[in-house]
Each structure stands twice: as C-alpha cells, then as structure tokens.
C-alpha cells in the first residue's frame, strides 16, 4: 500500500483554527500543513492544545472557526468520528485504549479494514487473506504468542503497541499518534520510534509527544505548540535552539 502523493499535496491542512472552552482559547488561530507521506512530531507543554487539535481533526470537537482539510479538499468539520475514521484518519489515544474484554486477536480483527455496517459485521467471515493480515500485524507488534489472551492482561506498553497495531490494520492514510511512548521503558521507547518510522514509509504519521529522546529518535520535522498556536517549526536542532521554545519548556 503506497500513497500516491501526486493526487494531493497536503494530507492535513489546518488554517486559522480557533476553539475555546468557556472563554479559554484552547486552540488559537492555529495553522498547520502536513504533507502527504510525511512523518512529523508535534510537541508542546501541557495545555498547549495538542489533544484538542487531535480532537478537532478526528471530529470529536467542532472548531469555532477556521478550516480543517484532509487531502486538500475534504472539509473535516462536516463529518463525525466514524466518518472521519472511514475517510482514512486513524487515531491512537494518549491513554492506551483497547477493548479490554476481547482477546488480542479479536481486537485486531475489529480494527481490520472492511465493512463497518451492522449487517456486514453480523455475517462477517474472516478470509484467509484477512487472517494473514492479522498474523502479520501481530508479528509486527510482537504479540503473536499472546493472541488469545484478553487485552486487559497486557502491560501498559503492550497495550500501546496493540493500539498501534489496530491503527495500522485499519489502513488509514494518516495516523495520529498521541504520546505513543507514555509509560514505556527506554528500550520499548526506542523500539516504538523504529516502528513508527517503519510505518511512515507508506503512511503519513503525526506524533504528539513529550519525550524529547523519542522525538530525536524519530528524526523528523517538529512543530512546537504553545497556548494554542504554533510557536516554532523545523528540525529538532533548530527548534531547540529557539529561545522562545527554551523559555516555554524550561519556564520563565
């Protein structure tokens, strides 16, 4: 599966987006452009508006004003979560969110791209090809041996990986990944970074992260958010040299 980048130039395009909650501007005139096939990281202190931005892109929250476009000309503000997921935007939550009382295999199966309608799922049967796909994902996230275990029995890090695996098998065009390294050991963190780089070979990936080591390992364009708008943009070296970024991160 490859993305034809000639059809459209930007996969996600936010322009002048503003969202306030009870007068507090969580997102303030935010403009971001993410190119098709790009891997990029969004960093910022707590309350910078990272999660609200994710909510706006995935349809959980409607912006007060501004444009949110997918693949150049699809207006995302007109759709809800399920529509947006089916358009090809996958999201991993900050807190690993898997279906606890289903097995790992069943979790991946639920995410498997395919019919989402009620009748389709009622009479759904797994084809050999689908089974292979699930097997491949389980191998990729290293949970093949635990396929029949309930997701509730996984460790925090394993749940993160399962969720990423579910995201991949959904075959989205862009993956929004919220703090994938949260609660992971250093070794796991680096493995996650490698996994995301691998995924970014044929998907657009947007990573929201706190962990600087992790962002360094991703080695990609970094956007720094602060108080709901973009503070700085560029390589990690460039933004870490920016005085304002240092001030925001290290306190004034």
């Amino acid at each position: 599966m490859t993305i034809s980048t000639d059809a459209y130039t930007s996969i996600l395009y936010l322009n002048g987006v503003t969202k306030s909650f009870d007068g507090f501007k969580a997102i303030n005139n935010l403009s971001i452009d993410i190119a098709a096939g790009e891997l990029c990281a969004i960093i910022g202190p707590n309350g910078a508006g990272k999660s609200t931005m994710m909510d706006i892109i995935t349809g959980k929250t409607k912006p007060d004003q501004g444009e949110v476009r997918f693949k150049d000309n699809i207006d995302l503000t007109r759709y809800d979560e399920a529509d947006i997921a089916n358009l090809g935007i996958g999201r991993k939550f900050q807190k690993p969110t898997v279906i606890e009382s289903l097995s790992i295999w069943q979790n991946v199966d639920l995410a498997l791209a395919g019919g989402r309608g009620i009748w389709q799922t009622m009479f759904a049967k797994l084809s050999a090809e689908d089974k292979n796909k699930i097997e491949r994902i389980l191998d990729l996230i290293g949970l093949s041996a635990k396929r029949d275990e309930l997701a509730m029995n996984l460790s925090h890090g394993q749940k993160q990986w399962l969720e990423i695996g579910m995201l991949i098998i959904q075959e989205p065009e862009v993956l929004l990944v919220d703090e994938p390294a949260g609660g992971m050991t250093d070794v796991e963190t680096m493995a996650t970074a490698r996994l995301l780089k691998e995924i970014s070979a044929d998907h657009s990936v947007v990573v929201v992260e706190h962990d600087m080591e992790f962002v360094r390992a991703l080695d990609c364009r970094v956007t720094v958010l602060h108080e709901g708008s973009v503070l700085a943009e560029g390589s990690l070296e460039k933004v870490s040299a920016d005085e304002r970024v240092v001030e925001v991160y290290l306190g004034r």
Partner: protein
Amino acid sequence: MWQRSLLFRLIESDKTGRWVLAVIAVFAVLIPFLNLVVPQGSFFHVPTYVVTLLGKYLCYALLALALDLVWGYCGILSLGHGAFFALGGYAMGMYLMRQIGDRGVYGNPELPDFMVFLNWDALPWYWLGFDHFSWTLLMIVLVPGLLAFVFGWLAFRSRVTGVYLSIITQALTYALMQAFFLNDFGFGGNNGLTDFKDILGFDIQADTTRAALFFISAMVLLFTYLLCRFITLSKFGRVLVAIRDSESRARFLGYRVEHYKLLVFVGSAVIAGIAGALFVPQVGIINPGEFNPVNSIEIVIWVALGGRGTLYGAIVGALIVNYSKTFFTGIIPEMWLFALGGIFVVSTIYANRGVIIGLVLGVFVLNFSAPLLIGTLLGQFLLLAKFFTIVFISAVYFEKLFIKFKHVVLPLLSSLRHKKPEADAAS
C-alpha cells in the same frame, strides 16, 4: 468428520449454557407430559397451577435475556425494559379482550366491558385490527420495537449514555404507567385487561392450553437464546462489547456506534415484548402495574445475579429469583424483600459464576430437606438478627451523636464564636 452445523457452532463453546438449554428442553416436554398424561393423584402429577407458574418464570427468563443483550453486551443499562414487556402484554391482552365477544358481564358484542362501563359507544381506532391474531402478532413486535426505535434514535444520536440513559428509561416506563392508569387512555385504566376466555379458539383455562402455552414459552426461550448467542458470537457482538468497554475507541475505529446501539436496543425491546405477550395469557391479566419502574429494576437484579454478559446467567438468575420470590412470599411474605436484598448483596460480593451453583444448591436444600431448611432459615434469622442489631445500634448511636451535636457541639460553637473577641481582648 463432524459436520460443524450452525447449532453446533453456537453451543460448542458454551459449556454452562448447553446445560441450561438441555434442562429447559427436557422440562418443556416433561412438564406438559406430567400434567396432561399422568393421572391426577399420582405422585408424579404436576398440577396446572404449577405449569402456569413455570410458564410465567420462562417469560421472565426471556425478558432477562433481552436485558442481558443490551446491558451485558452493549453496556446500555435500561431501567425501563418492563415497559416493552408490558406493551407486548397489552397487545396480546387486547386480542384476548376481543376474543371475549359478547360473553362479557354486559354482554355487549362490540365493546369490552370497561368501555361499556365508561359509556363509550364505539371502539377506539387503535383497537381496530385486534380481532385478528396476525395483526396482534405484528403489533406485539411493532409497538415495543417502534417505541424503542424512536426513543433510542433520539437518545443514542444525542449520545446520552450511562446513568443519564438509565434515568430516562426509568422515566419512560413511569410515564407510560401513568398514562395507562387513565381510563380515557382506552386500555382499561387501573384494572387493565382481564377476564380472558379464549385464545385462538381454545379455552384459556384448559389444561391443554396451559400446557401448550408453557411449551411455546420454552421453545421461544430456546430459540431466542440461540439467536442471542449467534448475535454475540458474531463480529457484530464483538462491536457491541467494544462499545461497552470503550465507546470512543469503537467510534474511532469507524463503527457507527448509534446504529449498533439502536439495533440491539430495538431487538431487545422486541424480545421483551414477545415475553410480555406470552406472559399475559398465562397469568390472565395485564394492568398498568407492569409498567412500574420497580419491575424494571427487578429485571436488572435477575441479570446481575445470574451474571451479566453470559446469556444463560440471565435465564438462571430470572428463574432462581422468581422461584425464591414465590417460595418466600408463600411461607414468610414479609421476608421476601430482605431475601431479595440479601441475594443481591451476595451476588455483588461473589460476582462470578460460582454464585449460581451456590444458589441452585441453596434452593434444592430449601426445597427438599426439612432439617436443612430449618438450619438455613435459622442461619438466615441469625444473619438478620445481626443485621438488625447493627442497624439498631447504629441508629441509637447516631441519635446520640445527633443529640450531642445539637445540645453540646452547636452551643459550644456558638459560645466560642461569641466569646472569642473577649478572649482576644483579655489577652
């Protein structure tokens, strides 16, 4: 090799459910046999009232199954499922009323007694069609289904979930109860519909009719169980579980949560309606009391007791609680609510499948062994005595505490408030 038929696939992994199904299937044949064929006076004869009683339990089991489907699998805690049950019951009741014909007290061939009593001169439009059994069957499915559809469509689209949803389902059944109490509503008001004579031309009081109704209830229960099993084993069922465990995850995976919820809610309401329709000819009456919110809460207790999200648990829970209810209200009526509370506490503490076995044993013990019965009752009594002692002591204690607060602490506080400036001044 073994042919993996659909039926086999449905019960293959359902070890406990298989047994429950088998027992119901055996009873479905055995009870009518023991009632109709074995002569009265024989030790093995089952009297008709027992057949009817068991038939009633089966209807409750069907109702519990309906609730388990929405609550156990999809996490929708409906506290208004009694409303769908009652609506199905009323639809059947209307048909049975029309079957009375001119054999009512007033002998009016056109109108049921209660309408004659209210001086109505024509049948309301919504009673038309209930002379036909096929129309009635349609209404039994359509009325609860339609209500559930409209209600669910509004609630799920607006993303009303959790306790808020439970409260509005409770309000729904309460509102319906109030409406059905009204004479002008046209469903017999307070008294409801009763004095039925025939069903499909068969005498409703006859042993054979009773036995047939029991058998049909058992068959409907078995069929519905297998249907629910099919639903929950399918990918559809796993989407329901996904919605229960993490609704937003299901949404972000691209599933239209409100469609899933709506379908399962409507399906469940229809099952509840069918249960009500089977219930009414067996008990011989339907009145607004069936809409009572308390009834709906009791259904939740049955399912919780049997273990939610297992299907067979709902059946076992309904059977056990209702059997115990009959038992307790028969010998010690005032103890029933305590027993129900006790059962609920026990099932909460031992919220696993083991509790079923324990309770089954308990019921057998209560039933078949007098010394053990006395022992158990004594145990129960001691437990209750302990409970009341604790309540009494704490009541006394709290009263003392309250008096102390009122007469000692409050004046002290106010005196402190007044004295403080003086103390300051003194220092």
